[in-house]
């Protein structure tokens, strides 16, 4: 895989998340009914960071949950590797809440479709809003984000790699040339 450009670094990632936190507070007129749900794996860490940012702004704890969408994917038979089913861990009721769904990269929209189905099986939220760090375009479903860290127009054979301190040991977003065999969802 060929690394072509660094799009965000630690500082710009944090700045984007802080801005999104402000936008969430503004749009929901406070965070009274707001909860955050991160999509495994990197969405979870972004969700935690957003919750921390909101706490700094509003001085309130926001509930954060983890969503595993494996069982809702529409490409299970297409992927070459063994998907591991992890637990969904949402320890609160999402009914009548404004759920902020968080993922790292928005691409085809299929992950979000799966996540919406998974969420709706868990309850009936007042709204579901979508926050992503990167929107790289090429949507295949009518889905759009409510909060975006950065829009990156990409070619299909390119790929966005989000690396986070919690998993990868550093914070950065890079544009890479796509490995041919990788046909998973970004």
């Amino acid at each position, binding site marked *: 895989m060929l690394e072509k450009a660094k799009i965000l670094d630690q500082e710009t990632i944090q700045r984007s998340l802080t801005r999104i936190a402000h936008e969430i507070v503004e749009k929901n007129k406070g965070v009274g009914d707001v909860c955050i749900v991160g999509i495994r794996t990197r969405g979870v860490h972004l969700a935690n960071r957003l919750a921390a940012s909101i706490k700094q702004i509003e001085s309130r704890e926001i509930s954060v949950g983890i969503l595993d969408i494996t069982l809702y994917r529409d490409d299970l038979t297409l992927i070459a590797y*063994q998907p591991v*089913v992890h*637990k969904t861990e949402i320890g609160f009721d999402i009914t009548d809440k404004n759920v902020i769904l968080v993922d790292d990269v928005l691409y085809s929209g299929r992950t979000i479709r799966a996540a919406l189905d998974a969420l709706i099986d868990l309850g009936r939220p007042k709204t579901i809003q979508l926050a992503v760090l990167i929107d790289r375009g090429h949507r295949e479903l009518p889905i759009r984000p409510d909060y975006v860290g950065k829009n990156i127009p990409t070619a299909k054979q390119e790929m966005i790699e989000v690396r986070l301190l919690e998993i990868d040991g550093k914070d950065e977003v890079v544009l890479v040339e796509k490995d041919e065999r990788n046909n998973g969802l970004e």
Partner: protein
Amino acid sequence: MSETTAWNKKDLLGLEYLSKEEILLILDTADSFKEVTSREIKKVPVLRGKTVVNLFYEPSTRTRVSFELAAKRLSADVINIASETSSVKKGETLIDTGRNIEALKADIIVMRHNYSGAAAILARHLGISVVNAGDGWHEHPTQALLDIFTLREKLGKIEGLNVSIVGDIAHSRVARSNIWGLTKLGARVTVCAPKMLIPPGIEEMGARATCNIEEALKNADAVNVLRMQFERDEQSAFPQQMEYYKKFGITEERLSKAKKNMIVMHPGPINRGIEISSEVADCPQSVILEQVTNGIAVRMAALFLVTQAHDRKKDETAD
């Protein structure tokens, strides 16, 4: 969690044929499914459009219902076929029955059969997945997996545990599957039964054998009490029921001499007053009903994993 472990088997025939990693993968996957079964909407769409056929040659309400619920919670369609082997004697062979079900475009056959090896024979002749729901005296993998799952949930780990299995070991598929699964995960297994119900060479499967119940319970972290089926006896060789209860029954008195908090398991249905006393069956250490609950999650995991492996294999051959 074992991210790198892959499940590549289209069938689940027995724990003898699985690696430690594969067993752990089922248990971990079941862990995730247990969360699903605790939801208000206990259903995920992962097997939507798939058909599961429960092919039962032996009557079994609990295992069949557990598999049926598991399949339905994965959004699969379920068909139940009950068949009496005796009436099949002159009729269709097992393989022909399987091929017919395959021709109906079913995706998984869950089979209970009174002859050992029936699931293996069926799996060998079919392209679709076969899940063994008990074959003769041979194996009952999902039962052992749910026993082990429950034990792990209660005690945190399997490695290093002392687990005793008490009852008719010779004719028990539950015992065999438990021996394989537990020993692969690093537990020490003791089987305990009247001498005539301990089959030859059981030690070669990794279990220690004893005819002394006190010895079996000493140091045990858990005891798995098997159902005594006196009606199976053809040669009147079984000791009388009361005699058995006196010598091998799990009673409060025996429990009081065992390790504190020793877990009591039973694959059900229980015979109160034959292999286990009512008091023990209902005591706080008894996890018998939790086993039933966990059975669904374990079977969901099994159905999910074999389907995944089967579909991936299909794609590979299509390439």
